[in-house]
């Protein structure tokens, strides 16, 4: 006989979990008691949102399921943003939440919340466990659901009495859920149809999203692009799925996409989406998106097909399998004219900024991060202007090296996700979180966790004194009225908060940079130390992200400057 709490610990062990992120509380003490005698590594975060983002960063960086453990009530409600972030981006998480005694549920007991009701819309699935006998099966199912199909977060809500109850139940069978059978192999006829379309196309374009990264299909994607001479554009979530140093790489498309990528979308005669979902930030005005193209859509999620854009050739299946099938069927070709056109766009309209500016520009800082790390780093971002600059001015060549909250756009994601990534990858890898002065303050408290566990993450803060992307929209579309977007008031204290002191107070190395010459030495110092480090870069306050497609406009209507 085992207790429910012991079933949890054993179930996690059987699922291959080595690290758990979370915070204890009244109704999960039994699980913590069982964990005390297990080899599981527990990382005590300072807020449950931090725990979910750490588990998320761990999952995105390693490809394994991220796991967190929190208490009932506020512990569970604090996970909601992290779960929604993981849900939108298809990140596999298992989150165990404590619940009050079964007999107390619905009685407004101390630290009670309707976790099932609250998390239903932000998870792939959730369970309320009513008997310890079900627990071994539910844990196995949760990991299976989280990691298969389009991955996503699963919540297991576990009342205290179920943790304490004894059970003889074991689960050693194979998970079999009759309502959940994700397709893996794409339909052979659809694959043949797509291969023929590729062979016939004059101007094909691959458009790869997060599914190409999550589906571990970067190698197949690269092989297909090279064999059939197809240029590749990626979404923000797809960065790293195709090496950006390759001449076929058009880099990111969409609202802040490159001119080459957006022009190629508008000119192509065959658009092949690989694990992307035609998000509004990618398509711009949907009726003018890829107007000349036959559209093929490869996705493991049938509900992604025809959601925003009608697919002429839908293929439901695992992208890796489908790409392998295509690779055998496509003919090697040269496509000289199309590639010359694409290369012309790349050369005429590179991503750029004012390299002669006397002020320290954020884009320069990102380029220096690329130089100093030799491009060999895992970059984790928050959300806003810095996120776009991190996408533009660092070249990603390997999958799982760019982690960002793409779908939900969660400010405060970066630092804890970087800590989780470092925990998963070990301290040998360089993990850099690029953030803004707005985003970083949303979960700064988690820096202590990095110090405590000797996880040497490097946080680079591009401090422009504003919620920069909001400021940019206000400058461009709201009459330059900076309502609610100013973080450091003119005439106020120059550094508020003082990020250097704040870093030091948390036990990390703190550095401040205010000019170009200081950037590379400071970054080197930060990367060389085996401690976590914060590098605050005080940058030009009103630099904008270009190019930009205004919201609702077609991808060819790009703004390159306000001048």
């Amino acid at each position: 006989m085992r207790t429910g709490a012991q079933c949890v610990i054993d179930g996690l062990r059987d699922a291959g979990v080595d690290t758990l992120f979370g915070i204890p509380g009244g109704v999960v003490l039994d699980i913590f008691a069982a964990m005390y005698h297990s080899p599981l590594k527990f990382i005590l975060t300072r807020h449950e949102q931090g725990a979910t983002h750490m588990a998320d960063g761990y999952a995105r960086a390693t490809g394994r399921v991220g796991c967190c453990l929190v208490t009932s009530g506020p512990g569970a409600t604090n996970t909601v943003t992290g779960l929604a972030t993981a849900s939108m981006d298809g990140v596999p998480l298992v989150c165990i939440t404590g619940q009050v005694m079964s007999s107390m549920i619905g009685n407004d007991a101390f630290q009670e919340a309707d976790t099932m009701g609250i998390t239903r819309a932000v998870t792939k699935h959730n369970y309320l466990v009513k008997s310890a006998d079900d627990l071994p099966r539910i844990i196995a199912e949760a990991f299976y659901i989280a990691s298969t199909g389009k991955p996503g977060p699963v919540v297991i809500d576990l009342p205290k009495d179920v943790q304490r109850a004894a059970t003889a139940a074991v689960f050693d069978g194979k998970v079999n859920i009759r309502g959940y059978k994700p397709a893996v192999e794409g339909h052979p006829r659809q694959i043949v149809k797509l291969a023929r379309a590729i062979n016939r196309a004059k101007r094909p374009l691959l458009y790869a999203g997060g599914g190409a990264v999550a589906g571990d299909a970067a190698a197949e994607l690269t092989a297909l692009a090279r064999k059939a001479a197809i240029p590749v554009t990626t979404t923000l979530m797809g960065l790293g799925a195709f090496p950006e140093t390759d001449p076929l790489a058009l880099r990111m498309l969409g609202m802040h996409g490159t001119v080459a990528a957006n022009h190629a979308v508008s000119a192509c005669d065959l658009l092949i989406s690989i694990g992307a979902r035609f998000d509004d930030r990618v398509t711009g005005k949907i009726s003018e998106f890829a107007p000349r193209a036959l559209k093929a859509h490869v996705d493991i999620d049938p509900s992604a097909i025809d959601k925003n854009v009608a697919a002429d050739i839908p293929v439901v299946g695992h992208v890796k399998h489908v790409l392998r099938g295509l690779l055998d069927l496509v003919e090697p070709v040269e496509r000289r004219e199309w590639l010359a056109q694409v290369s012309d766009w790349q050369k005429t309209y590179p991503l750029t900024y004012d390299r002669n500016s006397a002020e320290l520009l954020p884009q320069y800082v990102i380029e220096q991060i690329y130089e100093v790390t030799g491009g060999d780093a895992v970059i984790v971002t928050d959300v806003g202007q810095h996120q776009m600059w991190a996408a533009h001015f660092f070249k990603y060549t390997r999958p799982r090296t760019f982690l960002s909250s793409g779908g939900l756009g969660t400010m405060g994601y970066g630092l804890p996700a970087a800590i989780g990534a470092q925990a998963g990858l070990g301290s040998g890898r360089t993990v850099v979180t690029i953030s803004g002065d707005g985003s970083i303050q949303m979960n700064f408290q988690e820096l202590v966790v990095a110090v405590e566990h000797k996880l040497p993450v490097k946080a680079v803060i591009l401090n422009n004194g504003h919620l920069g992307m909001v400021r940019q929209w206000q400058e461009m579309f709201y009459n330059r009225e900076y309502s609610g977007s100013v973080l450091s008031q003119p005439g106020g204290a120059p550094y508020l908060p003082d990020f250097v002191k704040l870093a030091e107070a948390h036990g990390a190395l703190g550095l401040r940079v205010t000019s170009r010459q200081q950037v590379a030495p400071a970054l080197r110092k930060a990367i060389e130390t085996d401690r976590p480090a914060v590098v605050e870069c005080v940058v030009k306050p009103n630099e904008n992200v270009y190019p930009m497609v205004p919201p609702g406009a077609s991808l060819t209507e790009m703004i390159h400057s306000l001048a």
Partner: protein
Amino acid sequence: MKHVITALVENQPGVLARIVGLISGRGFNIESLNVAPTHDPTVSRMTMTVPGDDRVLEQVTKQLNKLVDVIKVTDLTKRRYLNRELVLVEVAAPAGKRAEIAELAELFEGKVVAVQARSLTVQMVGEQERIEDFLRLLKPFRVLALSRSGVIAVARADEAPAGSNAK
């Protein structure tokens, strides 16, 4: 357009909330809803009528299919299907009107199931359209209470009838 969606789901707590949440979260009103176990007690059949745009409801159907507790979802609207609804309706019936109401019920294969001093309660089973007709004709008699089961439906097989050798 009104869609009739039927789903086979796990007979478990929380499943109904999940399905209703997915539909209502997109601003659709579920006009009628019926849930009950099937011949397999671990499986329930759910039948919903939802008015809404075809394309959006196709998306909703796909997302319902994605739910782990949902075994199969079918939008019956564009297929052959049988539908029935049961209504219990209490109608004001002063002494002189009883025969007239009973006759109307009979014409619709309905049945008077309770007789009160000033009212009758009529039960009627039928296709949605016929139910609507019946209720329209009852209106002048003053309806005091109405309870409808919601539509239940099953798809009809499209293949040739059993016993034929047609392929």
